[in-house]
C-alpha cells in the first residue's frame, strides 16, 4: 500500500516530542474523547487536526471551542442519515 502521509500532514506533529504529547494529555490540557481517545490499555490516538488548532488558538479558547464543535458535528454518528442517489 502507498504511504498516506504527505509532508504537510507529517509536519503537524514533527515539532512535538513524545514527552510533550504525553504531558499535555496527562495534565488535562487536551480533552479525552476530543483531542485524544484511548484505543486500549496501551494505545491512545491523538487527533492531530484538533491539536494543531489547539496550538494555533491557545490564547483564544472560544475559537478552539468552535473547532471542537465543528469536528464533533462532522462525525458520522452526529449526522442525520443521508439519502443517497441511486
Amino acid at each position: 500500500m502507498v504511504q498516506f502521509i504527505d509532508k504537510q500532514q507529517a509536519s503537524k506533529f514533527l515539532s512535538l516530542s513524545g514527552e510533550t504529547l504525553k504531558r499535555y494529555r496527562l495534565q488535562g490540557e487536551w480533552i479525552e474523547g476530543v483531542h485524544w481517545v484511548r484505543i486500549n490499555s496501551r494505545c491512545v490516538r491523538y487527533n492531530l487536526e484538533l491539536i494543531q488548532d489547539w496550538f494555533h488558538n491557545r490564547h483564544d479558547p472560544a475559537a478552539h471551542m468552535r473547532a471542537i464543535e465543528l469536528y464533533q458535528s462532522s462525525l458520522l454518528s452526529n449526522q442525520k442519515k443521508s439519502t443517497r442517489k441511486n
Partner: protein
Amino acid sequence: MQQDFGEFSRLEQGQYTMFLQRELSETSESAIYFTLPGQNDYLYEYEGDLDEALDDLPEIYEASEVRIGALTPQAVAVVEQLWDYFDRTGEQTLEGEQEYNFQVQGETLLIFPKDDPGEVVAIDRDGQVESNFQPERFEHLMERFAIAHQQIQQFETDQNHDRSWEL
C-alpha cells in the same frame, strides 16, 4: 516487510499495515508512534515496543474502525477499468459523476466520498483493500460499482453490435 517513506517506515503484520514515525519513536523511551492507512489526521502512541505494537495491530485496527474490505467481483472489474484509464491517460485523479472521487498514489487507487474526504478506500494493484468507510458507505460503494459494471457491459455489447453491422 519494511519500506521507508521519509520519516515513516511502512511495516506489515499479515494483512495489517502501520506507518512507524521513526523520529518520535526513537526519541521516546517507552512508547512508539505510528499512523494507520487512511488516517492521516491521527497519531497513535503505543506503550511498549514495536513487536508488541505489531502484535496488537489487529485489535487497534478493530478499535479504530480501519477495515479490510473485500471487493465484489463487479467492483474488481470496474477497478481494473479504472487502472486502465489511469495507465492509459497518465492522469492522477478522476472526478466521479455521482458521489466518489478517485486518485492514484503510486501503486494504490484511493476512493474518496465527495461529502467526506476524510474517509478513504485504498486498493493496491494486487487487489488488497483497506478502508475506513463506515459499513453502510462501503456497501453503497459496492452498489455503485455494480451499476458502473452494468453500464460498462452494456457499452461493450453495443460496441460489438456496431462492429457486426460494420462487418
